[in-house]
């Protein structure tokens, strides 16, 4: 059983990572096409020279980190609140926000922003993108955290209360440690949907907040080139290395 599971996991990871390896491989291809013609670092050079890509990547990461942090904090609290007592209205709204087609979210948010901007002299920008991302990430966070909360033993809450913990003390010292894996999973999901979002972002981004997906999708209009592969590889392997190091540090 254990062995079979491990074998399966290897296959599953191969499935998940195959495209990643391919795009990484072609980032070293001399040709712009997916026909191997020789090794070169040109695309990396081009990527580092490309101001737009660099800025897009930086914006993407900045937005994703901010939106993930906010939506994870808000979403985890929200899930806890709903766990204490259900609220049909709030959970229905939350589900609705998940079901809403991206384009509709984007268009209506854009309209909403414009309506607000009438009252203050504001512009689309990083903030509007972050808010939009928070609004759609939050449902992912709540769902994942709520799924984990379902298994929480209320007896532990009783025990903490009994030992003099206040309600917040319980949340902080008992519930949160228990939720940690769920929160990690939720944050990873939020980060993923945020960093990869194109439709909504493209509608609410301002002049200073073009993200990497926006650059890439715009490129796709005329056919992408391996510069994108190079940037993607740098981001993934960079973040991957960071994770690996932080895991190592935590383990030791």
């Amino acid at each position, binding site marked *: 059983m254990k062995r079979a599971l491990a074998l399966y996991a290897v296959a599953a990871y191969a499935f998940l990572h195959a*495209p*990643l390896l391919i795009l990484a491989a072609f980032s070293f291809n001399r040709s712009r096409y997916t026909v191997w013609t020789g090794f070169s670092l040109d695309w990396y050079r081009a990527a580092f020279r490309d101001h737009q890509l660099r800025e897009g990547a930086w914006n993407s990461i900045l937005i994703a980190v901010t939106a993930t942090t906010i939506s994870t904090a808000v979403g985890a609290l929200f899930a806890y*609140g709903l766990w204490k007592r259900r609220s049909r209205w709030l959970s229905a*709204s939350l589900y609705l926000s998940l079901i809403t087609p991206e384009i509709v979210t984007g268009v209506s948010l854009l309209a909403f922003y414009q309506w607000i901007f009438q009252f203050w002299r504001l512009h689309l920008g990083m903030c509007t993108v972050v808010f939009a991302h928070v*609004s759609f990430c939050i449902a992912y966070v709540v769902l994942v955290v709520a799924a984990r909360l379902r*298994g*929480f033993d209320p007896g532990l809450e009783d025990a903490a209360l009994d030992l003099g913990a206040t309600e917040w003390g319980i*949340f902080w010292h008992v519930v949160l440690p228990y939720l940690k894996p769920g929160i990690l999973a939720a944050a*990873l999901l939020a980060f993923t949907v945020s960093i990869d979002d194109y439709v909504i972002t493209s509608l609410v981004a301002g002049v200073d907040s073009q993200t990497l997906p926006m650059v890439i999708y715009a490129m796709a209009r005329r056919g992408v080139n391996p510069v*994108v592969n190079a940037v993607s590889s740098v981001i993934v392997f960079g973040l991957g290395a960071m994770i690996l190091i932080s895991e190592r540090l935590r383990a030791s």
Partner: protein
Amino acid sequence: MNRVRAIALTPGAAVIVVLFLIPLAITCAYSALTRGAYFGLGPPWTADNYRRLADPLYGMVFLRSFALAAASTAICCLLGFPLAVFIARSGRRKNLYLHLVILPFWTSQLVRIYAWMFLLRETGLANGILQALGIIRAPLPLLYNDGAVLLGLVYAHLPFMVLPLYAALERLDPNLLEASADLGARPWTTLSRVMLPLAAPGIRAGAVLVFVPCLGAFLVPDLLGGGKSIMIGTVIQNQFTTARDWPFGAAMSLVVMVIVLVLLWVGAGRRGEDLL
């Protein structure tokens, strides 16, 4: 008790009200307006957009999308469950393995799909390997069919199943698994009779997180499916882009949202569970 709940709910509720419910109201208004001459929209108010939805064409698109999304969800669940079990049981390495699941998805979806196109096309890697190994003579048509769409949808959404499942499985009391084995259950039975029911909240969350985005997917059917079929998400998207018929798009999405919400509600309610 209630004060904490109120404080815990407030930020989230604010986000939902301001960033979702108000825009939703705007969408509702849009759905009852008339499209402008070339783009945009305006008065008069009309129910015409809803009437046009009665067209069976859109019903068919919806059913097709629904079937594809349901199939992807089921496959994601089948593929994701053992992986989630594996991660949940790998002790100190579990965070690492968890990150490994999500890592490929920090690239743009577009780029990943291009990689799949390279893998699956006639002169692609999969056919190349199969031909080199002499397993096949002529290349297989792996791309531009429903199989490829399904593959793409499953690939794109697998983490959305694995992560909630992991969150639910990680807490599973190993004692219960031991008790099950002790009572004569083989691993497979333990999986289906003990782990599965206890991971149900995770499965539900995962199913929603896979199903809903699948319904609205447009890149995968366009690129891996070769654009030869259309999903409801693309039809809606088209209304806001090429067709520039925002009111109709708004009406269509509202109807789809209501249908999906009702389905979820009924699905959850039948088992006597709340949505969350």
